[in-house]
């Protein structure tokens, strides 16, 4: 085009080419434009995915005929009642206690790492801490589980380390304890706990470090100038300010542990966790209603958890 021709109307003549013409038409009809943009996602997520999800949840209100093994399509709370049987209740309690233990341990372990990285690390150390968190976070999930199989093996490095330090009695003592012990570390709750802790720890460190980086250093100096002992300034200044970060991290560690079924299958004893229960009920056992009822448990627990976390302002720290 060369300059403006004021004698022509400001509206351009229709363009040639079917593609350009169609695009122009769509742009002139904003409602159509938006409709076309969200159509694929609505079809896939809104109808297929949500539909399947709802179908699954509806099945939890069906029950299974104990003799024929056929699903009875009648509304009942019987399947939810089955969740309260001692065996199934144990599965739920075991999973929730594991998730709680992993979350608390992750918070305790993450805090010094995050605090050091945020406040003191510089130069080479800063790089090392960055890689130290990012590498385990980004490494393949199964490779991490595999690495722990190497660590926890009976003939592996941990047993060797205990022997070198003349602490074999300590390891044996730990393994002979009633609940957390077992034949070897790789078939005990301690082993399952360690693997969970390792895999989800970076998800705790990152939000805690983010919240600590926002704490002005002057605040801590002011606390100690005003006579607070290090313990007091931790309890009254640092910890409350880091709390939203810890809660944000706990959402990850807690929910990821609740839903996992691979770690307890590979490292642990044969007692089931919720994820494994779902897997066996829908697969080999063929009891889809019970599997569906089991999947509702983590959804409800996380719903309550997120509601509480939101009240404590955790979402601002993400």
């Amino acid at each position, binding site marked *: 085009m060369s300059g403006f021709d004021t004698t022509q109307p400001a509206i351009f003549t229709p363009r040639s080419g079917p593609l350009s013409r169609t695009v122009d038409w769509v742009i002139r009809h904003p409602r159509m434009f938006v409709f076309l943009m969200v159509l694929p996602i609505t079809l896939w997520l809104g109808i297929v995915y949500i539909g*399947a999800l709802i179908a699954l949840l509806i099945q939890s209100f069906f029950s299974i005929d104990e003799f024929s093994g056929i699903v009875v399509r009648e509304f009942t709370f019987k399947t939810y009642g089955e969740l309260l049987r001692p065996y199934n209740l144990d599965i739920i309690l075991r999973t929730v206690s594991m998730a709680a233990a992993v979350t608390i341990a992750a918070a305790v372990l993450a805090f010094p790492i995050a605090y050091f990285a945020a406040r*003191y690390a510089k130069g080479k150390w800063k790089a090392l801490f960055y890689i130290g968190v990012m590498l*385990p976070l980004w490494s393949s999930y*199964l490779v991490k589980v595999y690495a722990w199989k190497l660590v926890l*093996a009976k003939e592996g490095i941990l047993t060797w380390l205990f022997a070198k330090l003349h602490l074999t009695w300590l390891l044996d003592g730990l393994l002979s304890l009633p609940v957390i012990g077992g034949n070897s570390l790789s078939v005990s709750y301690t082993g399952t706990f360690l693997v969970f802790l390792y895999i989800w720890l970076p998800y705790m460190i990152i939000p805690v470090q983010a919240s*600590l980086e926002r704490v002005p250093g002057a605040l801590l100096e002011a606390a100690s100038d005003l006579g607070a002992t290090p313990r007091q300034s931790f309890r009254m200044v640092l910890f409350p300010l880091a709390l939203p970060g810890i809660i944000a991290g706990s959402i990850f560690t807690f929910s990821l542990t609740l*839903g996992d079924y*691979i770690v307890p299958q*590979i490292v642990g004893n044969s007692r089931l966790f919720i994820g494994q229960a779902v897997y066996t009920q829908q697969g080999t056992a063929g009891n889809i209603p019970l599997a569906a009822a089991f999947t509702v448990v983590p959804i409800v627990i996380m719903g309550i958890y997120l509601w509480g976390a939101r009240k404590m302002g955790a979402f601002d720290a993400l």
Partner: protein
Amino acid sequence: MHSNTRAPLGLKFAAIGGLIFLLAPIALIFVYAFTTEEKSFQWPPPGLTTKWIGVTLGRADVWEALALSLKVAAISTTLALILGTLTAAAVARSRFFGRETISLLVILPIALPGIITGISLRSAFSLLDIPFSTWTIVLGHATFCIVIVYNNAVARFRRTSGALVDAAMDLGADGVQTFVLVILPNIATALLAGGMLAFALSFDEVIVTTFTAGNQTTLPIWMLEELVRPRQRPVTNVVAMAVVIVTVLPILAAYYLTRDGEHTAGSDK
């Protein structure tokens, strides 16, 4: 916050101890890849050898699993890029009925435990009579990859001024030209970051895959089978090492490219 004083000794020990806990297991994989021991996870290794690297390179099943994983990751990332960008553009640029619902819908597949997404998709596939194939794996992966692209793109769309689009159109660009010459250059880096994250997530996914793959074996499924029933420990060691190397290099690159205070793409996984 940053301090010029020295860290208390206890804190330093705790932090370094934590760092060792995070890095030692991964370092261990590198040692085991060269061990001569075949039947157990014996430590310390009785001897070192490089012959297992050659053995692994000659294994057809490993190559096939790798090829399938790369193929699935590439296709689902492409799908996620298209769907995620479209949705992000709609949500960021206009108000319409169901807008809030859509932004929640996109997050759901990653917010719910993978096992729930897996079972739902499996029952959807059997309900729709879709046989398990590479494409069912791709659909499963795309479902949770969309949110990664969407998150990156929606943030960028919000920061890009809508006046740019209006200006392009006023100057006579048609819809296609506006998209290629104005919108795409503006969102390109966000799409690149989102695409890389989605690719990595898909490449490593195992839980949803166990429900949506028939007899197909992706690399994570191969690893899982090897973990549940170890058959060839030395080969698994080498594969594990290779996977770690593939993940380390982008992290190092990202660190050196963005260490001047830039926000890294990976820091918000």
